[in-house]
């Protein structure tokens, strides 16, 4: 790692002010992602502001939503009774992420900001438009088995790596963001940016802003939800394809559905067309297969990752069958 200066912030105002005054400074929470990237020379912040002392570690029921403090660790979110009872898809997505050690370290706010695992992004000897805009994309025409099939551009096909962000996308979570002038709220489905011609711009977070909490709006059928993740080994691996789904089935018909896909998109991929198709349909495999087909509409493989398209469809069907069983 390159040398850097370090300070522990004792208040939100001090943390925000420190980064505002030194725009290349970065916040550090769990550190599992940024330190890894700093060791690989992908990130070179001159200053790290440790925000772990800030009081952002609670999970509470508020009017109309559950609020998760951004510094709550993945393991603590997954274990929380409000999450386990109300939104099992969040708990499953977290427990199927990373390793127990990393889940004890990584913050939920950092998780949604984690960078892609694309090997070209992480290897400074190769071209990458996300890491070094204009240098080209090594993955297009290169090793692309793990890359995205949805939301790609001719400049970038990197997959968004987070599992729980897929659940958050399905649940219409809202990010609470602090900046020196106050607070703002951004729906997670308006937070991420597809790569387009600017893959280095991954979200709408402005320099100096800090995610301080994540709100999960009440969803009566959130208890009927799950997360299904297909990967190369049973534990401790990123998704090849995953699906976060929730189903409201009453009187023999689907009243409403939520579907979001992971492992296949450049951003957590909400499948609204599939949700609309399911509303009013019978809870049958045929319905789920139609929804899966629509979920992958527009998907484009790069050769090595073509398999993700049929795999993701099967994952959607499996997830819907699991929650309706």
């Amino acid at each position, binding site marked *: *790692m*390159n*040398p*850097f*200066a*370090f*300070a*522990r*912030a*004792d*208040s939100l105002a*001090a943390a925000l*002010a*420190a980064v505002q*005054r*030194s725009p*290349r*400074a970065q916040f*550090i929470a*769990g*550190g*599992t992602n940024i*330190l*890894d990237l*700093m*060791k690989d020379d992908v990130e*070179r912040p*001159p*200053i*790290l*502001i*440790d925000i*772990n002392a800030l009081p952002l570690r609670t999970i509470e029921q508020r009017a109309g939503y559950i609020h998760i403090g951004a510094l709550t660790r993945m*393991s603590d979110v997954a274990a929380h009774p409000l999450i386990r009872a109300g939104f099992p898809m969040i708990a499953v997505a977290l427990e199927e992420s*990373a*390793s*127990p*050690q*990393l889940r*004890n*370290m990584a913050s939920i706010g950092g998780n949604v900001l984690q960078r892609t695992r694309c090997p070209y992004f992480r290897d400074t000897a190769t071209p990458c438009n996300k890491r070094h805009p204009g240098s080209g994309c090594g993955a297009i025409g290169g090793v692309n088995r793990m890359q995205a099939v949805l939301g790609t551009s001719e400049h970038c096909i990197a997959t968004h790596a987070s599992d729980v962000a897929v659940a958050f996308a399905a649940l219409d979570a809202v990010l609470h963001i602090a900046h020196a002038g106050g607070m703002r709220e951004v729906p997670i489905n308006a937070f991420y940016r597809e790569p387009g011609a600017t893959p280095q711009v991954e979200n709408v977070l402005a320099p100096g802003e800090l995610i301080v909490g994540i709100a999960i709006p009440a969803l009566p059928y959130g208890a009927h939800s799950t997360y299904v993740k297909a990967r190369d080994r*049973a*534990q*401790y691996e990123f998704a090849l394809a995953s699906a976060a789904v929730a189903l409201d089935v009453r009187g023999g018909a689907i009243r409403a559905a939520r579907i979001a896909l992971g492992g296949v998109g450049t951003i957590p991929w909400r499948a609204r067309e599939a949700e609309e198709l399911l509303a009013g349909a019978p809870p049958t495999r045929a319905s789920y297969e139609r929804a899966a087909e629509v979920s992958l509409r527009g998907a484009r493989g790069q050769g090595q990752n073509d398999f993700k398209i049929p795999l993701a469809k099967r994952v959607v069907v499996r997830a819907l069958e699991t929650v309706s069983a």
Partner: protein
Amino acid sequence: MSVPLAGAGAAQAQGLAMKGPQATAVTLTINGASRTITIEPRVTLLDAIRDYAGLTGTKKGCDQGTCGACTVMVNGRRIDSCLTLAMMHEGESITTIEGVANGDTLHPVQAAFIEHDGFQCGFCTPGQIVSAVAMLAEGHALNDETVRAQMSGNICRCGCYPHIVDAILEAGKPS
């Protein structure tokens, strides 16, 4: 690379005490003993434990959070010490493999690893044992499947997994 010290000064003006990039004194509590070491901010907890505190039981395998050889407990929770900065853990209680036994009496997990031959080369073993000690305290249902899942953050390239699982299941039995 040069570090803009103006940035550090600005943060100080906001009430933040800036450390580094030069080495400064940091006090860590490791296995109940307070140790003051002089380190740069970029020193990971793993390197601080091994190279500055001299406790070399904790191993550096991948140095990127993949293998679990560096597992230690901080305030009783297992973490990968390679992906965190030592300076982030002042005032916290750090437990390494050297702090697991009670004097000359092995921890039940250590004894079970010997009994079940839960290692071959031994490099991953300190991380496996510390991880298992913390895992048992987490209160998971104990069976082959859950132990394998909950120990998935600790890689053994000798492939001693069946014996490791047996050792943990035995250590986790109600006494």
